[in-house]
């Protein structure tokens, strides 16, 4: 037992004196989590909290176009910026180029008159079908000039599509309103009263949104809930630089020859390194989670909600940490040089992170990536954390991710031991 204790002390001393390794293992993920969460949070706020500026050029200025503009405004997504109807198209486009406006809409000049006419036709056709006489029923509908939407190319396709849908629903509302007004007028020979119009056209059914939750926990997803676990995992696996490098250094330096000539098995050194670096991964998790809870609100980022199953969180963190350490040991044992361990270690972690869904959500991945994704230990780590942080899962809910992780970690350990035996190092 004293041998293990002395080895642990030695490993901790060497680790504490490796300033570059400590900066890489703690500084780099702290910076990453801050930057990525800030960026993602600002995107989130842009999309859901701040209104997107929309230049509105109403070349029609009729009753229907005004109704249409009111309907767009009511959606709440846009900050309406009216532009003179006389503004030439070139100047309008130039204004978008030079300004910060992401969107611009031009309502054609005959918008109100044509929708008005088409509404009368549609209303009278409906009357005809009831056996009543409508004088516009025999006329054919007029083609309404399209509403033109300009957008900055930086807008994501999915975001643009949701804007399109919002504008279409506003347009549909205006058209339906016009038809109902005309229909009412044709039957009653007087304008529709406002209360009846509202009753007919306002939504009666509301949509309530609930984030998926396993145990009715009220965890509201935000940028921190996504990013803190993701970059904690990345940090854990980045110990490959320090740990893998330390194993290679030991193998290549004279100290390994002496270790081999001493009456102690080298496996003890590996056990000590695992315990030491498992401690490092736990320290990384504590530091990054604490940042999420305490520091993020101070700098305007959403706080990490740690209202999760804490025993499950500890177990998931331990298993993720052990898997990361096992991977680093495997790389350290297989690598022939320090450069191999550092280069391959770092690149492989970035690739495993990308494949595992840390950088792009896994549901966006093409089908061909599904199998490689499941081979990445970072994927299982991320899914386990998301189950806890986003769905409020308990220990039983994350076992489906913890067990594959344990299996992967054991595989790494077996590969390392076999490799040491083949190289006659143990």
């Amino acid at each position: 037992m004293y041998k293990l204790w002395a080895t642990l002390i030695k490993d901790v001393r060497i680790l504490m004196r490796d300033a570059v390794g400590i900066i890489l293992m703690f500084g780099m993920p702290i910076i990453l989590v801050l930057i990525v969460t800030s960026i993602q949070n600002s995107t989130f706020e842009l999309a859901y909290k701040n209104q997107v500026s929309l230049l509105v050029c109403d070349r029609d200025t009729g009753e229907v176009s005004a109704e249409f503009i009111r309907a767009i405004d009511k959606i709440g997504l846009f900050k309406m910026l009216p532009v003179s109807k006389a503004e030439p198209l070139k100047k309008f486009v130039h204004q978008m180029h030079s300004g910060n406006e992401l969107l611009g809409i031009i309502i054609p000049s005959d918008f109100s008159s044509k929708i008005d006419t088409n509404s009368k036709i549609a209303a009278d056709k409906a009357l005809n079908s009831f056996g009543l006489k409508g004088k516009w029923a025999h006329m054919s509908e007029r083609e309404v000039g399209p509403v033109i939407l300009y957008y900055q190319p930086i807008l994501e396709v999915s975001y643009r599509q949701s804007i399109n849908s919002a504008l279409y629903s506003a347009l549909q509302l205006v058209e339906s309103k016009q038809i109902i007004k005309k229909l009412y007028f044709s039957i009653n020979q007087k304008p529709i009263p406002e209360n009846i119009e509202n009753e007919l056209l306002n939504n009666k059914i509301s949509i309530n949104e609930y984030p998926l939750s396993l145990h009715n926990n009220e965890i509201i997803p935000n940028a921190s809930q996504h990013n803190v676990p993701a970059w904690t995992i990345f940090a854990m696996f980045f110990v490959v630089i320090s740990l893998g490098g330390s194993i290679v250094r030991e193998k290549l330096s004279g100290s390994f020859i002496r270790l081999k000539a001493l009456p102690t098995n080298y496996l003890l050194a590996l056990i000590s390194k695992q315990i030491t670096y498992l401690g490092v991964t736990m320290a990384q998790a504590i530091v990054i989670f604490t940042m999420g809870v305490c520091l993020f609100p101070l700098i305007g980022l959403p706080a990490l909600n740690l209202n999760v199953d804490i025993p499950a969180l500890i177990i998931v963190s331990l298993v993720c940490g052990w898997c990361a350490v096992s991977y680093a040991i495997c790389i350290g044992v297989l690598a022939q040089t320090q450069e191999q361990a550092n280069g391959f270690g770092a690149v492989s972690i970035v690739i495993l992170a990308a494949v595992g869904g840390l950088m792009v959500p896994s549901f966006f991945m093409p089908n061909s990536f599904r199998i490689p994704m499941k081979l990445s230990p970072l994927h299982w780590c991320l899914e386990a954390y998301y189950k806890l942080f986003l769905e409020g899962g308990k220990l039983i809910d994350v076992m489906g991710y913890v067990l594959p992780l344990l299996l992967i970690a054991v595989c790494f350990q077996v590969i390392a031991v076999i490799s040491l035996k083949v190289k006659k190092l143990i």
Partner: protein
Amino acid sequence: MELMDPLAINIKNLSFNYPGNPTQLFTNFNIKITAGERFGLFGPNGAGKTTLMNLMTGLLSFHIGSIQLFGNEIKNHNKSINNLFGLIPQDLSLYQELSSLENLEFFGAWSGLHKQQIKSQAIKLFDSLGLTKLQHIPVHKLSSGMKRKVNLAIGVIHNPKILFLDEPTVGVDVQTRLTIIDFLKDLNKNGTTLIYTSHQLVEAERLCKSVALIDEGKIIVHDDLSRLLSQHGKGGLEELFLNLTGKDYRNQ
């Protein structure tokens, strides 16, 4: 563990070649080194000195023949036999980030010593080698002579019965070399068998009582040094070496 054998090392019919290299480095090699010797193993570059050291310490495994340390067979040995010997490899075999004391604490534990034993041994060794004031300084900040002394102290912390030394004084000044040689002689007086190899033949003359010259895996001569010098009418080991090998050092 058997320690009564008067032979510290007994190599019988050893044959060895490196995996993948069919050339036999040792064929039916035999040598006996009695306990308490100060034995020097010499030969030109590539003669097989370091390989023989590695075989005797179990760093290389072999299949044909036998190597016994105090009667204990090293082939397929368990790790407990490693307690019998200490090894001072040619390269510094320590953690440069740690201080001398921290290195001794770690390697002492791996040699099977307890905390108190390590502490008392460290005090004695630092005192003998003049390292007491430097014991808390990280090794990478020490001079090469001091590093060599730390390297030596680590190898003997567990009072080994046999000490294998491969070029223990490379790159050190005369004073440090003499300190190391005196230290090794003291160690030998206390019962440690020294197995020494070096290209520093003048230094070897000061240290070794018996020598063996090997070349191409064969023993050319093995005897008491003073007897060999008088038999061949040579004034020193260097002259004797050139006379017996019939050539200059290779690759120099």
